[in-house]
């Protein structure tokens, strides 16, 4: 009896410790981020940081305006989501509603394979294949621009959105579909007016996951977004989203200098943006939650 109890207790303690260690790591990262980022604001105003237009960190005194970087991040996220969400959700609809089970079994792994591609490979393809294409056919001054980054990021977000949406759509109980069809609705009407609204919480989560992936993705934007610190006025303008700035400049920024703190401050802004997206996802999931035979 005793050894069984000890075993039970050990398992419980181990699992708690593992969950606790992840939380501890998260807390550690957040604390470190704030510790290294906040010292910037003792000498530089927060308003100038967030809304300043010029990023010249190596001047004396340095200029740390990240407004173009912030707008670039938001622009690339919105554009890539506009491309990825319809594609992802409609692919999920196809896989759940229309595809034959055998077809579904073949196509689903391939869509998920797209998620397994390393981001640096996709960035390289964007730089070497997509950029010259945009230059030649769309007359872009440079193929490394907002459109290029959005296309590649959309390609990266589609598998995430498709996977989670598909699970959500699959979880909609059969009775709902059958009831709708019994009332005389066509399959398309059922899908659009019954199934998708029922799965909205899961689809909302999927969209938010896809968007947070796009905003935080570093390697792709470092390689294909162009790197110009300006506010984009056209789809073909080169831009510099926030993660690209951090990645490009962190290695050579003098340790614990203002530049170093500024880069961490950008990290703090990114952290808050991702947090906002996650909270929004949670809110949407709760609001449209369907409590019934199965809920996501």
């Amino acid at each position: 009896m005793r050894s069984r109890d000890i075993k039970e207790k050990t398992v419980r303690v181990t699992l708690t410790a593992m969950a606790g260690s992840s939380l501890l790591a998260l807390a550690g990262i957040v604390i470190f981020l704030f510790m290294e980022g906040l010292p910037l604001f003792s000498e530089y105003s927060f308003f100038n940081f967030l809304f300043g237009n010029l990023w010249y960190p190596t001047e004396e005194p340095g200029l740390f305006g990240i407004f173009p970087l912030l707008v670039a991040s938001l622009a690339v996220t919105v554009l890539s989501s506009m491309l990825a969400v319809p594609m992802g959700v409609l692919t999920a609809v196809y896989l759940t509603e229309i595809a034959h089970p055998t077809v579904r079994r073949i196509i689903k792994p391939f869509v998920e394979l797209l998620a397994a591609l390393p981001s640096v490979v996709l960035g390289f393809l964007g730089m070497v294949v997509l950029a010259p294409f945009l230059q030649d056919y769309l007359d872009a001054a440079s193929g490394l621009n907002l459109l290029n980054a959005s296309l590649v990021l959309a390609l990266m977000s589609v598998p995430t959105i498709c996977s989670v949406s598909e699970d959500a759509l699959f979880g909609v109980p059969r009775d709902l579909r059958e009831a709708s069809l019994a009332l005389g609705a066509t399959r398309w009407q059922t899908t659009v007016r019954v199934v998708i609204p029922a799965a909205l919480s899961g689809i909302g989560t999927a969209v938010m996951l896809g968007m947070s992936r796009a905003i935080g993705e570093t390697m792709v934007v470092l390689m294909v977004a162009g790197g110009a610190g300006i506010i984009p006025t056209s789809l073909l303008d080169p831009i510099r989203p926030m993660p690209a700035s951090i990645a490009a400049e962190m290695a050579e920024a003098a340790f614990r200098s203002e530049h170093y703190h500024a880069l961490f401050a950008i990290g703090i802004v990114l952290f808050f943006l991702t947090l906002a997206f996650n909270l929004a996802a949670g809110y949407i999931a709760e609001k449209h939650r369907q409590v019934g035979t199965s809920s996501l």
Partner: protein
Amino acid sequence: MTIGKLFATALTVLSLSAPAMAAQQVVINGSTTVLPVVQKAGESFMASHPDMELSISGGGSGNGIKALIEKQCDIAMSSRDIKDKEVEAAKKNGVTPNRVTIAIDAIVPVVNPANPVAALTTAQLRDIYNGKVTNWKEVGGHDGKIVVISRDTSSGTFECWQELIMKEERVNPAALMQASNGAVVQAVSKNKNAIGYVGLGYLDKSTKGLKVNDVTANPQTALSKQWPIARELFVFTNGTPAGAAKAFVEYLLDPGKGQKDVLEVGYVPLGK
């Protein structure tokens, strides 16, 4: 495994690693521009001096000098000269920075091979980079918007360009900032209207190096200071180098050993 066996294993491993711990250690830190040279030379140095161990890391010139000031490293690599503020901080900490030049780096403006422009002046380069000149036809090329490609602001290459060409004027924010020499080469080779700048060792068939003020970039013009965009690469030590550090610095300066590595990595060895 019993406690006894564990202890015996640990003791064996420890004793095996004893020779490594007894070796003389030289800690080297600093510029990522100088890093390839020091790494290459370091490998052959450690092969020929098995009793010496080099610990090499890159973190930027600023970082390396800071480590030297705080006595965290023996040799600091730097692609720029030490600043006055840093000299003061060093004195306060009881460190006397000693500078040794180990190589010359030349930075070459490059354009796409399809671009007819083959030569520019430093004034034209400055106007292109600060945004005053925006079309290739203003400097003798086809009609086309100039796509300006630069490096991120913490790069040593950028600092050199800033100092010698921009003369403290700002690079236009619309310039495309790339994260490495390789990325600049990629971007320029794929865009007919692009202009960028790379280190001498990165010139290849995919880009065309420009003549500046009628001087072509090659090791000779870099050494003779005819080439206007050249800089020295340094290593700093605390006082004149001594012991294992001295051996390594001498190895770096040796024309048959370290300086050959300088040439292979793509920089310009010091002339005799």
